[in-house]
C-alpha cells in the first residue's frame, strides 16, 4: 500500500490512509527523504489521522523521517495523532523526541509557515 505524497507549494503532504505494514512505512520514509530533494521542498507534513495504532516501530520510523528531513534542510511535522492513540503511546512509554506535532493539517501548515518565516529572519541580509 503506497502512501501518496502531494506537493502543496513549498511543502510535501503525506497522508496515511490505512493501517500500514512495516515495509510500507519504511518505503514512505525513503520516498519522503528522496522527494524533499527532488522537489526542493521546505517542509513535510505526515498526516497519521487514519492510524489506529502507533507502536514502537511506527514511532521510531516517524521519528527517523523527521530527523532525516532535518538533515536534508527541511522541517517535518506529524499531524493527526488521535487522542486514544496518544493515550496508548504514553501508556506504552513511547516518545516522539524532538519531533514537531500538530493537531491537524491546518495547524501543521501554519507551523511550517512560521518555521519558514523564522528561517528567513535568520538569513543575514546584504546591505
Amino acid at each position, binding site marked *: 500500500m503506497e502512501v501518496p505524497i502531494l506537493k502543496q507549494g513549498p511543502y510535501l503532504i503525506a497522508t496515511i490512509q490505512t493501517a500500514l*505494514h512495516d515495509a510500507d512505512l519504511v518505503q514512505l520514509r525513503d520516498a519522503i527523504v528522496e522527494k524533499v530533494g527532488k522537489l526542493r521542498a521546505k517542509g513535510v507534513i505526515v498526516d497519521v489521522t487514519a492510524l489506529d495504532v502507533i*507502536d514502537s*516501530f511506527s514511532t*521510531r520510523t516517524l521519528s527517523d523521517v523527521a530527523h532525516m528531513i532535518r538533515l536534508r534542510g527541511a522541517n517535518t511535522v506529524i499531524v493527526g495523532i488521535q487522542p*486514544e492513540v496518544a*493515550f496508548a503511546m504514553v*501508556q*506504552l*512509554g513511547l516518545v516522539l523526541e524532538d519531533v514537531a506535532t500538530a493537531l491537524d493539517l491546518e495547524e501543521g501548515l501554519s507551523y511550517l509557515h512560521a518555521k519558514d518565516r523564522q528561517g528567513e529572519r535568520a538569513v543575514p541580509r546584504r546591505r
Partner: protein
Amino acid sequence: MPRTAKVSVPYRDDVEADVNIRTDGDIVTARRRGRILAEQSGFSTTEQVLITTAISELARNILLYARGGMIALKRVVNHERSGIMVVAKDQGPGIADVEKAMEPGYSTSSSLGLGLPGVKRLMDEMRIETQAGQGTTIIATKWRR
C-alpha cells in the same frame, strides 16, 4: 455478481482468532482481529486502541526475538467480569531473566527498547511463562470496566 445487501454480524465466537506471526503483515492482521474482538466484547474505543497496541507490541516481539509464533485472541469470563485474553506464544530462545525484562527500558534487541513493561501498562494483567531454549508464552488480559 449480485451485491450482498448487508454483511452479517459474526457469531460471538467467530471473532476469537489464532493468528500465525511470520511476517510484518501478520502483525497488521493480529491487530485488526484484536480490534474486532475488543469491539465485539464491548470495550470502549480507547480500550480497543490500548488492546490493539498491546497486540502489536507482542506480535512484534515474536518476530524480533523468535522469528515466528502465534497470537491467540480469546474472550474470558471470570465470576462477574468479562474481558479479552491475548496469548503470545513462540518457540524462540526464551527470556533469560524475566525480572530484568520487566524493568522499564530494558531490551536485548537494541532497536526497540520498551516491550513488556509497556504492554503490562496497556493491559490489566500479564503473566510470562518462559524457559531458555524452549520458548515464551505471554498471557495478557484486559477486563471490561
